């Protein structure tokens, strides 16, 4: 009997589904109904409990609280914020702070990670050993412990404001963080920004034109150097044309704190340093394995074709290495962004820390947690979509 039912597997009898459990199509439908039913039941059980509990504790659900006055201060913010503003605006401040530390962290970690990854492959024994020691130490210590260490180093290890260290004139290091001079306000800075944008667009245009011309005539054009010249030169020219202002806004000690200049808070310093150094160790491994994945024969073949050193790297090695590097690099970027939530533990006002304050003050636990999760999902998905697009662009085109 058993063999008989098995021989009918995979081939539904003509005339549609038979309503017997030995028909795989029918069985699959039954299983799926059971699984979905179980999930719906558990979900209904949890939701009904939650509604019951909320009614019992007389907590109103909904996001109306976002419009209410927040009444708590935030240490650092990219937009104007005062305790009189709403919870919604406070949350926006948190999101921007998370994005700030993530974007700067990703850039720095990529640079440091690439340098260390290349250093691990160096023919110089000392440098290779030093780089691998760094990777092995940093990777195997919890990131939270590293954050605590950096934070304690600044807030405990540095002198109070009045005895601030002054390593370079105008730069002050104290428990309140790093204070650096900034250029005094002048219309020329805005113009330089515009010039930079114009230069970037022009450099992009030049590189497109150069590529098209090389495809047509075979003559190369130094588009890289031209672009660099444009991007550096145009803002400098604007600066010179604007009268080359040199006035600086130097921080001064007045009372108990500094005024003037720009500040990097101890919290921001700790979270940025900790995340950057931690992620850089992982990126170094990604870069190293990517470079090692390109066969040495590729270099030899490029040499045999007569390509000099720099085009060999740019046209032969890097495109192949990037194919291996980009997917794991994406997950490292995502990890850094998610790890920025550790900011909560050292008091940097990122979105988790502000949502936490909000849910403690209002008791809107479900709304607070869903807002944290929703924001991170949006950030994670955006990074994956961008990196997938980039990955597709550089992926191997198979014929």
């Amino acid at each position, binding site marked *: 009997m058993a063999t008989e039912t*098995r021989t009918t597997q995979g081939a539904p009898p003509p005339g549609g589904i038979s309503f017997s459990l030995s028909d795989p199509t029918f069985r699959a439908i039954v299983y799926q109904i059971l699984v979905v039913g179980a999930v719906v039941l558990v979900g209904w059980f949890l939701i009904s409990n939650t509604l019951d509990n909320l009614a019992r504790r007389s907590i109103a659900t909904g996001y109306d609280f976002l419009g209410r006055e927040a009444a708590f201060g935030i240490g650092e913010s990219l937009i104007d914020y005062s305790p009189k503003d709403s919870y919604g605006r406070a949350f926006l401040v948190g999101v921007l702070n998370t994005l700030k530390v993530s974007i700067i962290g990703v850039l720095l970690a990529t640079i440091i990670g690439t340098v260390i990854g290349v250093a691990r492959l160096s023919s110089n024994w000392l440098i290779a050993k030093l780089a691998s020691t760094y990777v092995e130490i940093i990777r195997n210590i919890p990131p939270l412990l590293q954050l605590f260490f950096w934070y304690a180093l600044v807030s405990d290890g540095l002198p109070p404001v009045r005895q601030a260290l002054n390593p370079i004139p105008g730069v002050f290091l104290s428990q309140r963080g790093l204070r650096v001079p900034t250029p005094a306000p002048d219309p020329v800075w805005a113009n330089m920004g515009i010039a930079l944008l114009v230069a970037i667009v022009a450099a992009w245009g030049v590189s497109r034109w150069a590529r098209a011309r090389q495809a047509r005539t075979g003559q190369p054009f130094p588009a890289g150097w031209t672009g660099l010249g444009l991007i550096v030169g145009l803002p400098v020219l604007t600066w010179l044309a604007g009268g080359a202002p040199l006035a600086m806004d130097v921080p001064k000690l007045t009372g108990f704190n500094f005024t003037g200049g720009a500040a990097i808070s101890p919290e921001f310093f700790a979270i940025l340093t900790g995340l950057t150094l931690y992620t850089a160790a992982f990126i170094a491994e990604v870069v190293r394995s990517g470079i090692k994945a390109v066969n040495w024969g590729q270099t030899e073949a490029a040499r045999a074709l007569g390509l000099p050193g720099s085009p060999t790297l740019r046209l032969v090695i890097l495109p192949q290495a990037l194919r291996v590097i980009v997917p794991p690099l994406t997950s490292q970027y995502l990890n850094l962004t998610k790890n920025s939530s550790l900011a909560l533990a050292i008091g940097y006002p990122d979105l988790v820390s502000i949502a936490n304050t909000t849910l403690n003050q209002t008791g809107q636990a479900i709304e607070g947690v869903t807002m944290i999760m929703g924001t991170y999902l949006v950030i994670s998905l955006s990074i994956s979509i961008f990196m997938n697009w980039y990955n597709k662009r550089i992926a191997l085109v198979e014929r």
Partner: protein
Amino acid sequence: MTDNVQSVGLPDERPPANTVGPIAWLRNNLFNSWYNAILTVLVLGLLASAIPPFANWLLIRAHGFDATSTVCRQDAGGACWGFISEKLRFIMFGMFPWDEQWRPLVTIGVFIALLVASCDRRFWKPWFGLVWAAGLALVAILMWGGVFGLTYVENTLWGGLPLTIILSVIGLAVAFPVSILLALGRRSNMPAVKVLCVTYIELIRGVPLISLLFMASVMLPLFLPNGVSIDKLLRAQIAFIMFAAAYMAEAIRGGLQAIPKGQYEAADGLGLGYWQKMRKIILPQALAVAIPPLVNTFISFFKDTSLVIIIGLYDLLGTAKAALSDPSWRGFYREAYLFIGVIYWIFCFSMSKYSQKLERDLNRGHRR
């Protein structure tokens, strides 16, 4: 006519001094080009300026294990190891009753013995699961007590290294079967099951662990029927299990994808049903491939247990931070963080070395 032919060979000429020996090594590895020479000199200079002050602080000017905080504060140029000896038992065992602290110590020993034994492939047999179960039962008896004349200890008093190990090992053990089901569900032909598993895995992997811990600590009490409550440790453990299951499912999916299609077809050809096919043919091969990434997941999981400090549990990092808040020992954070950093490092580094060795061993069969 043999006079012209020398029948005894000359003694071998020694190779030139600059091709073998330490000088050649230096030339080949440190000074093989002008920029490497510059880099070597720069790095040596950097090391020369960094290592002596560190060694000075760590050993030469350090205060011994009997130093008091007043002595250490008078001469702040050296490490104060008196802090570690004073706070050692608190950092390692948290608030576990003082006289009973041999119990968490034995717990650590049991876990390390189990983990070390699990590394040996001769023990990868079904009966070893029973050894684990017995070990975990022993741990439960030791930590909770209440039987065999041991006094009962509430789990709110647990802390330090045992808590770190319990959270990660129990989390892993419970999450493992769940993650197998999730991975199979993600590869399933049934659209509804597939969508559910993909949603769960991607949802968990898209949010930080902190938000899951928050969910467990503030939302879980709301999910339960009125009158039912679960303690903080269990809530954290549930968050860790949910988190680990999603990440381990992805590691196992990698293993499943590495199994050639012919294996599935051969199992079908033998007339095996779905569960027989998975249990006897696919999973044994897929799990073997997935072990190195699973060990890596476990390493990051072990480091992530330090996040429980945020919901007010005292794991190894939590106890170290609590020890630092003692007014008479405030400011000795370098000693505290170095000490627990070394403990974490020993665990994670040995696991990562083991995973690398395993990867080499397992690959040996595939290389022909």
